[in-house]
């Protein structure tokens, strides 16, 4: 028995939402009485406590609930460590409050539901835990990461954990073969049987999901297959001549493949932009000293001036166009989001507030939700394209006017791209550098538009 105090200390949240560890004396007494010597394996302890709980012995259930509270706490810490920072989750308690809900391990309060009706993750663990199949710590973790409230919370922060069943719905026979062959040397017969198992699963599970989606599209997570569904899968397999697989084996097999799939996942390598190095504008701006070139330089200066005017005009036009389209789209959402969008943008570009700080002002809780609503990256890209669209034509006309008999024409598109690249990477760089007082041109114009449209 490692760390026996786990069986008699309860991790819980106080009414103020603070994490606290309480000693439960009845559980300590129970553990001391049942296991006088410490040399017992956890698995044996848990098995015996389960048996005592069924008698029923409330303090035995209490011991298990204490243990589970530690494991829930640990699972949340693990999740928080893995992506709390990247997702902007402010503190561990935000996760704990969703799943660490057991405050009465001995079931003494009249309002505490019996185990059969206990809706908390701890209750679910106790109802479904089978010591022959898993250890209590891993089982608890599994229940935690598939918890619906926690998934929704994580999703609000932009983190998605696929359920096993969703993973398996998307598994192709080809991919399964690859996964199994990478794992170990397997012969063809095994692979064929694996394919048949997957096919039986998908035949039943996907068909049912499709049928239920055709009726009502509530965004439900994929739940584990029901015993009935497992039966149908086994029957399907028997039709294929595979008769030695029980529902239980089938379920374990599928879960194992889901783990294989998770393990095989790798974040894709994103190609990094090679910035346009040769910028036409630079060459135009470079000193031209010979007398003949001076006239040309004057013409180029005039060109540049008109060019900058055109650029600014195109940027303002593109901002107005892109924002009004976005506002129109968002005003059609239910509930309408256009007000929150504009307020959020104003705070971001004009007040320099962070996404996290903006959230409460526009009725949101998480930074990711703000990121998603404002979608600054897409906004920039759309404004840029809109500018490109306007400028391509306009710059062609300008160059024609000012720079005669030059080969500028062919390079115009490239030059324009390079110039826009410079402008927009400046705006992008700024977002990593929130406190700089040097605002990019794009941000200035955006702010200008936002400030004036509310006049």
């Amino acid at each position, binding site marked *: 028995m490692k760390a026996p105090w786990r069986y008699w200390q309860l991790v819980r949240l106080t009414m103020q939402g603070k994490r606290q560890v309480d000693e439960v004396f009845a559980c300590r007494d129970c553990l001391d009485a049942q296991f006088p010597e410490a040399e017992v394996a956890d698995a044996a302890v848990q098995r015996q406590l389960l048996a005592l709980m069924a008698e029923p012995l409330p303090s035995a259930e209490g011991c298990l609930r204490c243990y589970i509270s530690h494991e829930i706490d*640990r699972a949340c810490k*693990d999740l928080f460590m893995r992506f709390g920072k990247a997702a902007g989750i402010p503190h561990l308690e935000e996760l704990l409050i969703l799943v660490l809900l057991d405050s009465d391990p001995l079931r003494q309060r009249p309002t505490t539901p019996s185990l059969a009706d206990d809706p908390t993750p701890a209750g679910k663990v106790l109802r479904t835990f089978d010591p022959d199949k898993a250890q209590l710590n891993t089982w608890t973790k599994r229940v935690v990461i598939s918890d619906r409230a926690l998934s929704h919370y994580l*999703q609000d922060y932009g983190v998605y954990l696929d359920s096993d069943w969703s993973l398996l719905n998307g598994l192709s026979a080809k991919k399964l073969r690859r996964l199994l062959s990478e794992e170990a040397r397997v012969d063809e017969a095994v692979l064929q049987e694996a394919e048949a198992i997957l096919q039986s699963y998908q035949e039943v599970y996907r068909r049912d999901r499709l049928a239920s989606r055709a009726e009502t599209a509530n965004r439900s997570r994929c739940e584990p297959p029901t015993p009935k569904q497992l039966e149908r899968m086994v029957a399907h397999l028997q039709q294929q001549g595979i008769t030695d697989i029980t529902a239980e084996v089938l379920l374990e097999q599928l879960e194992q493949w889901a783990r294989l799939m998770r393990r095989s*996942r790798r974040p*894709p390598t994103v190609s990094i932009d090679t910035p346009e190095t040769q910028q036409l504008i630079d060459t135009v701006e470079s000193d031209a000293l010979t007398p003949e070139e001076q006239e040309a330089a004057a013409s180029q200066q005039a060109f540049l001036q008109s060019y900058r005017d055109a650029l600014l005009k195109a940027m303002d036009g593109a901002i107005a166009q892109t924002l009004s389209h976005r506002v129109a789209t968002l005003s059609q959402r239910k509930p309408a989001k256009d007000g929150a969008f504009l307020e959020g943008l104003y705070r971001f570009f004009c007040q320099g507030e962070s996404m996290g700080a903006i959230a409460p002002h526009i009725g949101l809780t998480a930074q990711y939700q703000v990121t998603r609503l404002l979608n600054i*990256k897409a906004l920039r*890209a759309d404004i840029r394209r809109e500018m490109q*669209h306007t400028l391509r034509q306009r710059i062609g*006309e300008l160059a024609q006017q000012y720079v005669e008999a030059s080969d500028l024409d062919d390079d115009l598109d490239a030059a324009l791209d390079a110039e826009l690249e410079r402008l927009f990477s400046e705006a992008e760089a700024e977002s990593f550098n929130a406190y700089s007082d040097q605002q990019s041109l794009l941000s200035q114009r955006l702010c200008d538009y936002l400030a004036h449209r509310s006049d």
Partner: protein
Amino acid sequence: MTNPSLDYDEILGERFLQPDAIDLDEASITWAAATSQTADTDDPWALYLQLLAGVGVQHWLQERSPRLRHSSIENPARSSLIQIGNTLTHLLPTPCLEDGSVEIPDRILETANLDVHLLVEVLEELGQVQVRGFLRHPELMQAIQTAALQPKDGSYTVPIDWFDLEPDRFLVQVEAWEPASVSEPLVLENLDRNPQRVAEALAGPAINAATWFRDQLDQVAQELSWMLLPSFSYSAAMRSLRSPVEQLDGILSDLTRYRSVTIPTAARSAAYDFRVEGAALRLYVVTWELPSAGAAPDWNLLAILSPQPDALMPLGTRLQIRDAQTLLTETTLDDASGTFLYAQVIGEPNERFLISVQSPNDISLTLPPFVFLP
């Protein structure tokens, strides 16, 4: 079978959602599920994902690039192909980018004129779709060849990193891939100072007005969305009040009555709406054959410039017709009471004429040349 283990250092396979993930509405999900159940397919699930991808991409395009036109995805038999702008796009649904590869059915690669594959992550469980990347078809084919990739069980397994994973670039490129039509109107400042441009324009693809007499618009005219008008003998009752032909009727009766221009009833005409510096204008071209001394008849080109209904033509707007050598005729709107400009030339069948409209600020729009080759 061993105990399922779930260690603390086990990979959870978590992923970070994209800020521009598209939430599919319930009606779309129900529609996709119901359609794939009843469609004639041996893989309803794949069709379902395909339809979700299609709906998602449509939302995405509407949100991100309202300028781009796209075809509908509602036909389940063609659900994986969508025309975006001029780009025939194959929608490639995938459950998860982090899986590292994606299956491309080999039969889709035989599609004629396929331009690009668009990688769409379908998060079925969440009812969300994320556009994640794209790969131009010729590049894919080239890469398949270079890597000596073989199809297996009806599909190629293609690594994700062959794709450009910046979907914003897809939007930029789709707009750029719209092949800049050679026959697009040429917009220039100071056309008079650009004899070379005039020569180039005259040498480009031409609009053959003779096809109008066969009730046809040739390809160049079609690309520019010219409207072929019914012949003048057509019953007036069939026309709507504000239609181009109605407006033209008024102008033509003005021309014949007060300016002694004679237009035979056999003449045919077409109209073209455009803008120059914000002014919404309409150009009518009326053409007819003339008896000539040679074997082939000569032809008459009458150009009429008017504002579009409810619009105004700015004072100082000019209408010009040129040939290879010279500016043949030019009229300027210099009277506020004037409602249209017209110019007329007569030519031999193989002669080309260039019609330009010039704004008061000397921005001119030049149309492809006109010819008359019966």
